[in-house]
């Protein structure tokens, strides 16, 4: 009946196996850490990583003893154990009930506090505090690539996000077709891009380098090819890049935008040296074909185009 007691030899072999497994796991875990969201390069990602690790630690402090107790109690009170006292009618203890309701309750109160404070501190639409003025970037998800418009620089890129280091970036996001999620794991917070609506996101990257970006919401057949590179440049280099791109490459107007919206995937990065002003709002309003006309600000589709109270 009792599977553990009958084979004492299996203890020895499991010990060896577990030691090998342990070594293997620790090697894997060492290589596994320091990537993606565990290696944030900006304050938002850093704060989120801290909350992730703190919350995990708080819960592990409860869960590991519970797991040990599960195995220990089940094993000690096995039917064959003559030393264990059998109490066939013991089914209630007010003190224990207090504790078993109390422990989860206190844990959740603590974590709930973390969630409340964290939600407010890290609200995506909240601007970041910084001495540097924010850079504005408008993000459009297309089938199946990303368009980044720099309204102040008058340039646009496809599948290549370039931002200056230590500078808050204020993103306005929308989608030209279906839903996607804009996500650069090492920057932090991801957010939905939704057609006819805008969302807002504020991120900052402090370490120069090239980071992977992706769509984190399935959007159709070309979805896995919606990857892009996010490049963080020192501030002066960013200025040089923006200057150099100005006027270079094609112009992004209604015609070239129509060309760009054709479904393609795994698109190589490219740059547009000029961008028709108001393109982003025209995409949100689905009026790109009338881009040369002024966009009516009170158009009903723009009016409701706000996913966040402060968006749109």
């Amino acid at each position, binding site marked *: *009946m009792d599977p553990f007691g009958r084979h004492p030899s299996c203890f020895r072999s499991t010990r060896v196996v577990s030691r090998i497994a342990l070594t293997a796991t620790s090697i894997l875990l060492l290589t596994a850490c320091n990537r993606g969201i*565990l290696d944030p390069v900006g304050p938002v990602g850093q704060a989120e990583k801290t909350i992730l690790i703190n919350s*995990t630690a708080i819960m592990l402090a409860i869960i590991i003893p519970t797991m040990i107790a599960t195995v220990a109690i089940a094993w000690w009170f096995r039917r064959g154990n003559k030393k264990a006292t059998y109490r066939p009618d013991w*089914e209630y203890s007010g003190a224990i009930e207090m504790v078993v309701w109390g422990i989860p309750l206190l844990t959740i109160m603590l974590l709930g506090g973390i969630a409340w404070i964290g939600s407010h501190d890290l609200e995506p639409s909240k601007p970041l505090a910084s001495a540097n003025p924010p850079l504005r970037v408008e993000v459009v998800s297309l089938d199946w690539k990303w368009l980044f418009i720099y309204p102040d620089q008058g340039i646009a890129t496809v599948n290549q996000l370039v931002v200056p280091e230590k500078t808050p970036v204020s993103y306005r996001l929308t989608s030209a077709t279906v839903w996607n999620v804009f996500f650069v794991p090492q920057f932090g917070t991801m957010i939905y891009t939704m057609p006819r609506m805008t969302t807002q996101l504020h991120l900052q990257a402090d370490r120069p380098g090239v980071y992977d970006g992706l769509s984190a919401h399935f959007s159709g057949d070309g979805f896995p090819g919606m990857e892009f590179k996010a490049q963080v440049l020192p501030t002066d280099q960013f200025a040089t890049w923006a200057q150099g791109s100005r006027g270079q490459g094609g112009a992004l107007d209604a015609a070239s935008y129509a060309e760009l919206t054709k479904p393609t995937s795994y698109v190589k990065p490219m740059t547009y040296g000029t961008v028709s002003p108001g393109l982003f709002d025209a995409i949100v309003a689905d009026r790109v074909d009338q881009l040369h006309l002024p966009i009516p600000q009170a158009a009903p589709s723009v009016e409701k185009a706000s996913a966040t109270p402060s968006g749109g």
Partner: protein
Amino acid sequence: MLGKLSWDAIPFHDPIPLITSLVVILAVLGIGIWVWRKGYWPALYHGYITSTDHKKIGIMYIVLALLMLVRGFADAIMMRLQQSLAIGASQGYLPPEHYNQIFSAHGTIMIFFVAMPFVIGFMNFVVPLQLGVRDVAFPTMNNVSFWLTASGALLINLSLFIGEFARTGWLAYPPLSELEFSPGVGVDYYLVALQISGVGTVLTAVNFVTTILKTRAPGMSYLRMPVFCWTSLAANLIILAAFPVLTVTLALLMLDRYMGFHFFTNDGGGNSMLYMNLIWVWGHPEVYILVLPAFGIYSEVAATFSGKPLFGYRSMVFATMVICIVSLMVWLHHFFTMGAGANINAIFGIASMIIGIPTGVKIYNWLFTMYGGRVRFTVPMYYLIGFMLTFVGGGLTGVLLAIPPVDFVVHNSLFLVAHFHHVIIGGVVFALMAGYTYWFPKAFGFTLDERLGKMIFWCWFIGFHLAFMPLYVLGLWGGTRRMQHISDPSWAPWLNVALLGAVIIGVGIVLTVVQLLYSIKTREQRLDVTGDPWDGRTLEWLTLSPPPHYNFAVLPDVHGEEAYWIRKQTAIKQDALIDEPDYQPIEMPIDTPTGVICAFFASLCGFAVIWHIWWLAILGLVGAFAVFVWYAWQDEHEHIIPVEEVRANARERRRIRMEHLHSLSQST
């Protein structure tokens, strides 16, 4: 004449669906011929297909669930294989249009046609027995519910042979699922199949809430009901509150697709965020519809195999009802990243965490049920302990996902995929396997092979951890879900471990079939003659295995929380059974083909709607109404089991019980 249907719908050029179709068709034909040749057809027709017996319907639900498990698992292993192959330069063996159908079908089938029928199957089989009554409140409707569920399953699987399935994920988010972006019939298959099976599910809930609240054995007050009945009640109340919302959501999407409405479209003022809200108003409670009955199974298993009453029964009931209510108020945590604002995110995040409190209480109560017990390490107990060890981890990651700022970086990621498999496999599937082993002897009169059962457990336990722990890691790397191709070659080792895990689970599923066949073959060695093979505590163990159609010759009088245990202890103490009661004839519902005919017309109508064959759709509706009226016109819905038969059966049972009682008193 045939709407959108043409020969192009048959996948002549795709070997995978074509060969699968042929194999399935041949298998169905083969089984049909075998049944016919062996002369089992009448028994199958009268004993199961048209049966209004809750036990037979429960068994049919579970058979459906196991069949669909094989289908859903085939999808799973194909996905794992594709992700292991399609890394870097390689595109793997599945193009996006196939891969996307497979993950959509996997989710849809596993939730709607594996987990749901499995859970509902147990409710069907167990609840009336535990309540000490003879059937559910509405036996005919019960049969109709089953066949409507089966009809949905049929349509989903038909999409493999004729046309295509949705390529939009298991919740078919618009605008991707709108006609503009998904012009094929795939989404229509999804919508129609779920609508039909959804009707069946709502009827089931009506049936079980009525059964539990209005038909219980004499003396069984609310606080004497077994915990499985309580959790079933909670699950069915959630179904009543949540499934109508699913019906509406899918209906609105159908109106968009079929009639050009603008609920969720990009143009015309449509609002796709509304779909997201509506579908999760159903979708999150759905999780608890599955997991609450699972908790009920664990409670039964824990008490029985610890040889002790469940610790903190009232606390357990309270925790169940808290979960039942709070589960309906947390849906927004599925889209914290939509930009709803800090207050809304925080409130829904905390509400989600609150569910962790009663769930944690349950874990501790099972722990203290074992404390002071005599724990027998049977297969169901393996699953219980395996669950307790696994589920706390799934709970941990669940609470993490409920913290909005953490969700901001792991939303929709492989971390999420790992989390929900963690709780659904570790929580629901383990319970279903435990329940399958636990109640199998009650259904068929012999136990399942223990050794193979433990091997199956280890396959699930090890396989699950290998398959999903790597996905946590990849999720922390920023890996997202539903990727037909992976660019980063450094993912390969983790994906290969995950594939290995899936293969081990696959071995477990194969062993389940082996165990069943082997146990049937060697059943003489493990016959359950007493009807109480596990030294049980609830009323289902009072009657014989398998129970007679009417379950109990006389409805048992209930005198305490563990109705059967008390009765058994009294009998052992007095070395005598209670006095023979005055037997009476029993009125039982007759078999009826209503359900299967209803489902036939529903399938016909559904298929017609999918392919825009309008005359056939109208024919289906008229047919369904005609069946309904025809049934309503019948006068005889019951037959009487004569008192002689009842008495003879009951005396046989008493004789067996007496023998068992003597053997017990001799051994102690």
